[in-house]
């Protein structure tokens, strides 16, 4: 193999699994260290700079970081990254004086359509540069789906208010209760650029299932129903409720139903339990609240008697997978299953819908109904001054993805407004690599990992939780638990950096490495090297770090897979050929140094 090019920041970026997996590339180990040091405000600001909504995300994030966490490959459970983020939000001081202010007016005007996380991120990134930002939303308050789709027992309103407020307080001109019904019209209003962050607002229905029309009074599209609950237009539901669907919206629907009078609430889903789209922890939370999840049942009919919905019929199916792993649901041939109910909530997915964007605007769409976008870096549509982001861009995803889109779109809008090229002139990520050596054998971080296991966040008593729709179910970690949970982080951003010319091949690093990552072997191709290592490197997703040829002609090969970043290789190295160096990686934002004083944390 060729020597690893560590001057390309993407190499070490990939080693920090959590940060790499995060769509917004939030510097996870950095804020977790700050939490362990009780520097909650710093931890919060690191997050806020990167993802704008730490308090919201610390409760609701889809957490792609956690399945990626290296700790999960070393022992059973990953670090509780998401809930540690909430700790930072819960225990921070008043940070308002650390937030950036709107910059001096630069004479450019931007419209933001939709008041969700994508638009708010664009607003946050552009406001310090002096843009005049106009935010439009059909609802009376900002937040988008964060407000309308996430029930307040998971995300208290005041947390959302606070973080939406931090953005809107930067001098954003808000136009709430204003539904935009014509893009052509918007284009005549003199905006230098328009950002569309209106989400994927149409909940899928089951129009062709018999009885849908007759039972309409008690059949609701989950997305709309949740919004009605959030804005207090709906306060009750029948005693027996069927929720159709297996995603996170279905989980929010069933748990909300339990709090609005639903006593016998069931989730009924077409697919097998394991294939459901909902996050495992959201399924667990629903089951914990006494909600059975019945899988492998396909809706056949809404049964209506005397003009009133009385139940639903389902066909029992089995999942069969072909050679390529494609699934088909085959009927078992048994009699249809009848399930009684008073109300049905349909939560089977959502779609993009842009009935308000006219053809003559030059904005073109794919056959899936999503806009044709330049690429996932620029977010520019086929009309140069219109940009998309969040669910509106590629279809339904999650808050953290919307935020990541927002950052990139904001960079594009800023470049566009300054007449620069969106690709050529894009700023690179902000990267540093700094030695953490403090003494002969000492590092500036807690290098030896603790053995503690992950613990679950404590909950309020079930009865109490079900009695109050606004009572937050999770209590969050107390500072003592948070410290232990934070210490479980392996500090993967403390990189093992190897300098081949200094190595005397004494083997000390290979001998001490607790997880047998380090090898001194004859070079070969990657396919040849992987099985030849002390422990064969079977996880092909993880890179091999290969050095230049050493004096004996051998090379160093380090399998990054289960490296503990414990620093023992560097501690036992007599010539400092190994060094532990802190790698920081911050994605480019439109306004650099948004929060001063975070460098090197």
């Amino acid at each position, binding site marked *: 193999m060729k020597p690893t090019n560590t001057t390309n920041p993407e190499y070490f970026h990939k080693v920090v699994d959590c940060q790499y997996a995060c769509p917004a590339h939030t510097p996870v180990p950095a804020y977790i260290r700050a939490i362990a040091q009780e520097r909650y405000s710093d931890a919060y600001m690191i997050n806020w700079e990167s993802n704008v909504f730490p308090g919201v995300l610390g409760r609701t994030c889809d957490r792609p970081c956690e399945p990626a966490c290296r700790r999960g490959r070393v022992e059973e459970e990953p670090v509780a990254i998401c809930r540690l983020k909430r700790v930072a939000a819960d225990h921070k001081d008043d940070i308002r004086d650390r937030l950036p202010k709107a910059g001096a007016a630069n004479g450019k005007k931007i419209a933001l359509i939709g008041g969700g996380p994508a638009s708010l991120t664009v607003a946050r990134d552009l406001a310090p540069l002096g843009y005049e930002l106009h935010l439009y939303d059909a609802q009376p308050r900002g937040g988008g789906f964060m407000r309308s789709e996430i029930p307040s027992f998971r995300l208290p309103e005041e947390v959302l208010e606070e973080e939406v407020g931090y953005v809107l307080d930067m001098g954003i001109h808000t136009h709430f209760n204003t539904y935009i019904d014509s893009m052509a019209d918007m284009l005549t209003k003199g905006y230098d650029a328009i950002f569309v962050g209106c989400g994927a607002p149409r909940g899928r229905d089951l129009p062709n299932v018999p009885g849908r029309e007759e039972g309409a009074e008690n059949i609701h599209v989950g997305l709309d129903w949740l919004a009605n609950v959030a804005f207090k237009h709906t306060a009750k539901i029948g005693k027996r409720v069927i929720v159709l669907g297996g995603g996170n919206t279905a989980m929010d629907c069933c748990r909300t139903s339990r709090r609005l009078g639903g006593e016998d609430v069931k989730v009924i889903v077409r697919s097998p339990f394991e294939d459901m789209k909902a996050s495992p922890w959201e399924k667990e939370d629903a089951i914990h609240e006494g909600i059975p999840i019945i899988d492998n049942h396909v809706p056949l009919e809404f049964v209506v008697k005397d003009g009133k919905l009385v139940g639903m019929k389902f066909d029992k199916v089995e999942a069969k997978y072909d050679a390529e792993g494609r699934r088909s649901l085959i009927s078992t041939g048994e009699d249809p299953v009848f399930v009684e109910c008073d109300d049905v909530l349909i939560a089977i997915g959502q779609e993009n819908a842009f009935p308000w964007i006219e053809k003559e605007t030059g904005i073109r769409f794919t056959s899936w109904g999503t806009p044709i976008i330049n690429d996932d870096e620029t977010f520019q549509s086929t009309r140069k001054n219109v940009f998309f982001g969040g669910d509106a861009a590629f279809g339904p995803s999650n808050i953290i993805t919307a935020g990541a889109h927002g950052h990139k779109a904001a960079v594009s809008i800023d470049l566009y407004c300054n007449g620069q090229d969106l690709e050529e002139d894009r700023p690179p990520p902000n990267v540093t690599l700094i030695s953490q050596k403090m003494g002969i054998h*000492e590092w500036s971080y807690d290098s*030896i990992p603790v053995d503690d296991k992950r613990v679950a966040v404590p909950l309020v008593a079930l009865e109490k939780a079900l009695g109050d729709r606004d009572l937050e179910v999770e209590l969050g970690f107390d500072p003592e638990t948070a410290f232990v949970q934070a210490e479980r982080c392996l500090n993967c951003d403390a990189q093992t950096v190897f300098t081949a010319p200094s190595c*005397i091949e004494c*083997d000390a690093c290979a*001998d001490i490495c607790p997880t*047998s990552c380090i090898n001194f072997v004859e070079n070969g191709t990657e396919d040849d090297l992987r099985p030849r290592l002390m*422990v*064969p490197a079977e996880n092909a997703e993880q890179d091999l770090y290969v050095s230049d040829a050493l004096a*004996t002609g051998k090379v160093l090969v380090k399998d990054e897979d289960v490296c503990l970043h414990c620093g023992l290789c560097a501690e036992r190295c007599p010539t400092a050929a190994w060094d532990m160096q802190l790698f920081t990686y911050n994605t480019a934002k439109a306004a650099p140094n948004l929060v001063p004083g975070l460098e090197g944390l």
Partner: protein
Amino acid sequence: MSYVKPKFRHPNLPTNRRGYTVADYDGAISTLCAGCGHDSISAAIRNACFKSAIEPHRIAKVSGIGCSSKMPTYFLGKSHGFNSVHGRMPSVATGASLANRDLTYIGVSGDGDTASIGMGQFVHLVRRNLNMTYIVANNGCYGLTKGQDSATADIGSIAKGGAVNPFEGIDLASLALLQGASFVARSFSGDKGQLEPLIRAAMAHKGFAFIDVVSPCVTFNNHAGSTKSYAETREHLAPMPVDFVPMRDEITTTYDPGTTQAVTLHDGSVIHLQKAANGVKTDDRTAALLRMQEARDEGNILTGLMFLDPNQADLNQVLNLATTPLNKLGKDELCPGSKVLKSINEGLR
């Protein structure tokens, strides 16, 4: 400085025939200097015991005093051990071996512990052919007392302070050969590919197995002018690659005809010596002495298996000791009483 090793190990760590992983052969974290050759020897012993699937509790480690003799703390944390008096490890090893001949004995010593204070005990141990593996971590200096020349320092080697060593160094491997050792090898701490199979062969050998390991002192003897630095050793190394195939394993490696020599040990395991085509014979004591002397004259360090006699009688056989070891004999056998004493005395009258 970290004084504990993390508990986590690679989840796919392979297991040996007995079901142990190499981590089961780990000891405490080393307190020797970073980059010490001795740590590499510790790791080689650990790996050798793992690969040969010797159960950790069937091994006894014995040592004297010095950097080298601290080593047993840093490997085989679940084995028996005795850190004895300076240069007196051979006595302890002899006693232990007589009491329980079923264990695998690994003696670890240094150039000071063996070639100076322990020289008397060492030569007697060699001539008695005690069944053990005796490893000298040889760095040519007294690392524990700031790097003074030891008795194995080569003539002309320059100490860290600048003084040139005026005395001829003791060559322990040649000495062991002269005194009739049945297994003599030399290796280098930086060459685990050779050292591990040598240690495995030494443990399989029935009799006294001596391995002299050049082990650079990274703090006091790793500078320009030292003859036992990493760089200098590598430059003058004349290694003979060695493979060890235990009795139970199938021989899978193939060698070009005439390039290897195979030696079968008492337990049926086989040592393959590569590059042995140029007339090297491991069963010729005089030729081995000559080869080592010639290499030394040329300033080279010859490593590999120098001499092996798998059939030489060990101490138990020579002394015709009871077939049952001492620790298995009961009170009545060990102390047969006045009646037996009387009959012995009668026989002497």
